[in-house]
């Protein structure tokens, strides 16, 4: 029985959370998962609450997931995107947010290209702030849904070997995974081209391995990160083909991994680059379950934070 009670109106980063707080979110999400399996996929828990999705960066999966989660809790959702809004007319972030807050919104879910923007926002508004990805800093709900999925598949996180493969440098997903998993006692390895592994990352309590064939042996979980084609090509590695050959998880490479390894990917997948199509759709893949679990985890986060007095 957990004795922890939730007191935060914001969820900004897994770095901020205690092990007990993370476990409380996971436990709450477990209970919420059942709601989506009902014929009436809705509970009245957040009836009368308003949740604003404020996305300054493109996102389909995360925004939709938050919207579905809020609706399954009976909250009203309002969507703002940067294009076509007043930000394109030069309005500052704090002005935009304060205007949204003036419409009596209880919680703001924000994605922004600047690291630290969520924390900044949480200081200028009274509404709760959920970080849906801030620059290369953190993407806490993705980290939580990854951990939730791992826990569902492997039962226990403590002592589990998890390898994050790909662009660790620009990945907020990687950072949230590292913070969350290490707090719960997993052994985390990061693997990728040296140009995409930030220097000093060992200080976060992870091991570094540059050779993917060595890295994937004995791992219980491979979490494969997206190569951000639009940003990296040519700058951090010679070519996409070379990346696929050196670091892509192919059918051949899978033979070196444990037979019960689970394959995860936060999406969207570049098929044939970081992950072969056959592996993405294969028996070890839990990629679509991550999407399903994302709803339950976001319901838990929205519920816990929105219920805290403002």
């Amino acid at each position, binding site marked *: 029985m957990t004795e922890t009670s939730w007191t935060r109106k914001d969820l900004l980063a897994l770095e901020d959370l205690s092990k007990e707080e993370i476990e409380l979110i996971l436990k709450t999400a*477990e*209970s919420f998962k059942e*709601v989506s399996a*009902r*014929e*009436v996929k809705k509970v009245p828990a957040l009836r009368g609450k308003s949740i604003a999705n404020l996305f300054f960066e493109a996102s389909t999966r995360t925004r939709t997931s938050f919207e579905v989660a809020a609706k399954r809790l009976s909250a009203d959702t309002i969507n703002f995107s940067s294009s076509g809004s007043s930000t394109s007319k030069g309005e500052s972030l704090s002005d935009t947010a304060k205007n949204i807050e003036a419409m009596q919104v209880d919680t703001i879910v924000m994605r922004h290209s600047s690291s630290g923007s969520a924390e900044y926002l949480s200081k200028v508004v009274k509404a709760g702030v959920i970080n849906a990805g801030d620059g290369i800093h953190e993407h806490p709900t993705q980290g939580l849904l990854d951990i939730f999925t791992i826990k569902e598949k492997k039962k226990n996180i403590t002592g589990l070997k998890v390898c994050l493969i790909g662009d660790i440098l620009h990945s907020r997903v990687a950072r949230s995974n590292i913070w969350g998993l290490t707090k719960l006692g997993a052994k985390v390895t990061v693997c990728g081209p040296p140009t995409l592994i930030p220097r000093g990352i060992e200080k976060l309590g992870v091991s570094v391995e540059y050779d993917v064939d060595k890295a994937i042996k004995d791992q219980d979980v491979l979490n494969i990160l997206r190569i951000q084609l639009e940003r990296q090509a040519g700058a951090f590695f010679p070519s996409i083909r070379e990346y696929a050959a050196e670091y892509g998880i192919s059918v051949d490479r899978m033979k070196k991994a444990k037979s019960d390894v689970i394959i995860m990917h936060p999406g969207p997948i570049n098929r044939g680059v970081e992950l072969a199509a056959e592996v993405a759709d294969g028996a070890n893949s839990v990629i679509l379950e991550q999407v399903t679990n994302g709803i339950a985890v976001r319901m838990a986060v929205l519920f816990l934070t929105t219920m805290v007095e403002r």
Partner: protein
Amino acid sequence: MKLVLDSPSIDRAVTRMAHEILEKNKGTQDLCLMGIQTRGVILAQRLKTQIQRIAKVEVPTGILDINLYRDDLTRVAEQPVIHKTEINFDLANKIVVLVDDVLYTGRTIRAALDALTDFGRPKRIEVAILIDRGHRELPIRADFVGKNIPTNEDEIVHVRFTETDGKEEVTVDQK
């Protein structure tokens, strides 16, 4: 602290309630039990065991967490821990016996009625309660009662089961 039921008395009450449930519903046809988290779940399990002993039928038994349906959810100081709901059978045209440990204001049962409605349309809903302590705030009553205990509002009824509390007893304490 006042002891109102000891372990054998709890057993006898549960056995009698099982008989009453079978008598009122003329057997186990369409019957199912729904325990309300957390001690109602244990009580439902015990009623199920008794019904199985008496009628030789295993009645479907579900678990209901009503916290998301509470009318004071936004007003309680301490956030409730959300537990699992598990209903692995269709409620349509069933007789659902809601099972909880204590009936007090009636608000838990109201929330449970709302929750059940989201799962389907039972033929009838009945309420089985180990302790009815009075002080209703809503027009709700129990169909099956283990024991009626007159209480003051400044008293607390504690139901303790081996599974959750390591001992079997019902006590009335001063707040």
